[in-house]
């Protein structure tokens, strides 16, 4: 697709969509959103880019292979289940602790969030793997 309008839009929108996907991921714990939706959104930004230019260009924007995203995602999700073992709780127990950021107030961080981030990365990677491969056909 060689439309300047769309290419410009893809260029400008890519970081915005990416940022938006992160926000959606973060707010997922209390409001609609979460890792799955966030991952889909992140993927859609790159897919749009790939449609406007081509797959190679989108992969350059991504810096890493989508497969790496999948691996990183699965590992993150798996690692997030481990801290519970070290404090003596069963596998997969959610562990939470507060993080004092000073100016931004207290933020609650927990292993479920890390797990959700793993989901985010995995879904993002999977969508890109499938669609990029199909587009390259």
């Amino acid at each position, binding site marked *: 697709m060689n439309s300047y309008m769309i290419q410009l839009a893809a260029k400008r929108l890519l970081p915005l969509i990416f940022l938006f996907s992160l926000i959606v991921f973060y707010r*997922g*714990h*209390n*409001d*609609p*959103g*979460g*890792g*799955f*939706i966030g991952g*889909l*959104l992140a*993927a*859609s930004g790159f*897919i749009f880019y790939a*449609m406007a230019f081509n797959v190679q260009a989108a992969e350059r924007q991504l810096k890493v292979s989508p*497969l790496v995203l*999948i691996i990183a*995602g*699965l590992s993150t*999700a*798996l690692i997030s*289940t481990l801290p519970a*073992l070290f404090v*003596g*709780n*069963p*596998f*997969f127990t*959610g562990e*939470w602790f507060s993080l004092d950021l000073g100016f931004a107030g207290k933020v*609650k961080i*927990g292993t*479920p*969030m890390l*797990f*959700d981030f*793993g*989901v985010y990365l*995995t*879904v993002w*990677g*999977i*969508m890109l*793997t*499938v*669609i990029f*491969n*199909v*587009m*390259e*056909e």
Partner: protein
Amino acid sequence: MLLSYAKGVAKGKTYGLTFEWLPDLYLNFSLYLDGLSLLFGLLVTGMGALVMVFAGKYMQPYALRNRFFFYILLFEFAMLALVLSGNLFTLFIFWELTSVTSFLLIGFSHEKPEARSAALQGLLITVSGGLAMMAGFIMLGQVVGSLEIAQLLKSGSIVQNHPHYLWILLLILAGAFTKSAQFPFHFWLPGAMQAPSPVSAFLHSATMVKAGIYLLARLSPLLAGTPEWKYILTITGAVTMILGGYFAYSQTDFKKVLAYTTISALGTLVLMLGIHTEISVKAAIIFLLVHALYKGSLFMVAGLIDKSTGTRDLRKLGGLFQVMPITSVAAIVSLLSMAGLPPMIGFIGKELIYEAKFALPEMGNFLLVAGVATNIIMVAISLALIFRLFLGKLRFPGNRPQIPDLALSIGPMILAAISLVIGLFPSQVSNLLLKPAIASVMPEITHVKLALWHGFNEVLVLSLITVIAGLILFRLYSIVNPRLTYFNNEIITFRFADSFNKGLKLFTRLTKKKTAFIQSGYQRYYLMAIFIITSLLAWYQLYYTREAINWWHFQGAEFYDWAIVVIITASAILAAITASRLVAIIALGVTGYGITLVFLIYGAVDVAITMLLVETLILILFLLLIYHLPRFTNFSSTASRLRDAAIALTTGGFMTGLVLKATQVNLHPTISEYFIATAKPLANGENIVNVILVDYRALDTLGEITVLAVAALGVVALLKLKTKKGSTS
């Protein structure tokens, strides 16, 4: 390190350590140390150390020796963890790990086809036994409500009075018997002699094959004492014992002789545990130690002889005392222990075994005869090895053998020395190590006294008979052995190992046929099979509960609900009948968006967003693909279209019924209230959908994303494979 616990264990203390893992399934990682695990632990680490020294020298010419040491250390870790496990599932995991490492070690010389087939055979047998054992463990967990060993040991009466006792027993025995090479699973052990000698010394004499014995001893307080236990174990043990002895007597390969005597010894151990009297448990534990000491030593000697002369064939060797005197002394001492002659510890073990058999009146005669016969063979083999292999005229096939390296001979020497020292001064060891081990198999026993001289009694008479008969059999060795070898090779054409392989081949052929039948390779048939079976099963259920479902229940439906329904239905029908692919895809998209609207209206915002995104992406995917497809032509006949329509209607109908039923029949209070109430306090989140996904049901989610990842890899493989094919053709 383990020894530092010995004092405490000797006083009857036990040590434990537990990490909870999935406690709802009784899965914990826990360790448990008492007399029995201490004895085994010391056996594993002690033998391990000696074998490492031996292997360091022995494995020098092998190119892949780094890999070898990795495997054998991994095995040692697994074996140690196995005997220290405090939870049956922990035990099971390490049990399987020992099987896997054993596979890798037997098949270490993987360029030899015999080694590969022996490795596979050992793996298949021990692992299938392990699988049965796991089923037994699961049943045990259901009965007792825990798989912690400390907990289980107190629950003997519950298990033994449970109607499933026999099943549990059989399944667990399947695991123990395959691992410990009991008849009729014994044949993998001689095959395992393909492994390098350090492996045979370590895995297949002293440690891994004893894992089954360990399990039987460990679970004795729980399972033993019933008639089933007694008869199964004593008969299997006795048969294995005699068969092992017979085959050992008729072999000509030094290592094979040792392998069959190991089988025989394992049979004796099972038999002793099966009798389960005070004296037999004592005999079992002591014989266990005795056997590990002499057999480990002998296997190392076998490796050493193989190394320096280039053969293990007993017919070609003799008089090795003249070239390797020290090693020969160690070997002779070990062989005396194997024969059960004084002053070795083997003598004490054998005396106790005889005594145990005397003490069992109802089966006594049969067992006694079997035991004496086996021991006569042992005496004969030991004497034959002593007088032909080490003493007598020097014979060797190639160059004159060198005096072996100290690193090779030190292991057998140390083990032989221990055999001798314990034989002379038994009481020290028995108080520190054996007594607590015996007590953890049979808690009633508090007193263990060992001595070389028991006084003149019927047991001693039996020993004398054994030795005399053994001497006679030894004199006949040179006449009988070649005949027996001939008999085994030519007359008995039935071979366990071969028939196992044949069965395996037949099985693979059958499964291939079955797979070819079920897996047609056409996606439409898979889909059809899935839809038809699911919907028929569901219809069956729905039919029997049809009264409970109100099929025409439209109260509260607003006009926009109707509008959405019309849109969805119309676009679905359009998608089914249109002649244009593009129209069909867009119509499908419209259906999807319509459903998204429904979700949105009824408050499932998360689901709606997800669905919206997924629908969009699928639409994109389809549109991308459509570009590559050939022109739409109608291939399917009217009949097949009607068939598809029927399947679609049944499936759709059952989904409708299911949803109606789900909304109208409330068997339990819905679980959503629990989630709403606990999401914030327990999981720090207000979005219930997400909290369920990442916290309450995190394991499911992990499984799902893994499946997705695998699917993505599948897509890559499929597409890449296709392009490759396309480029070559």
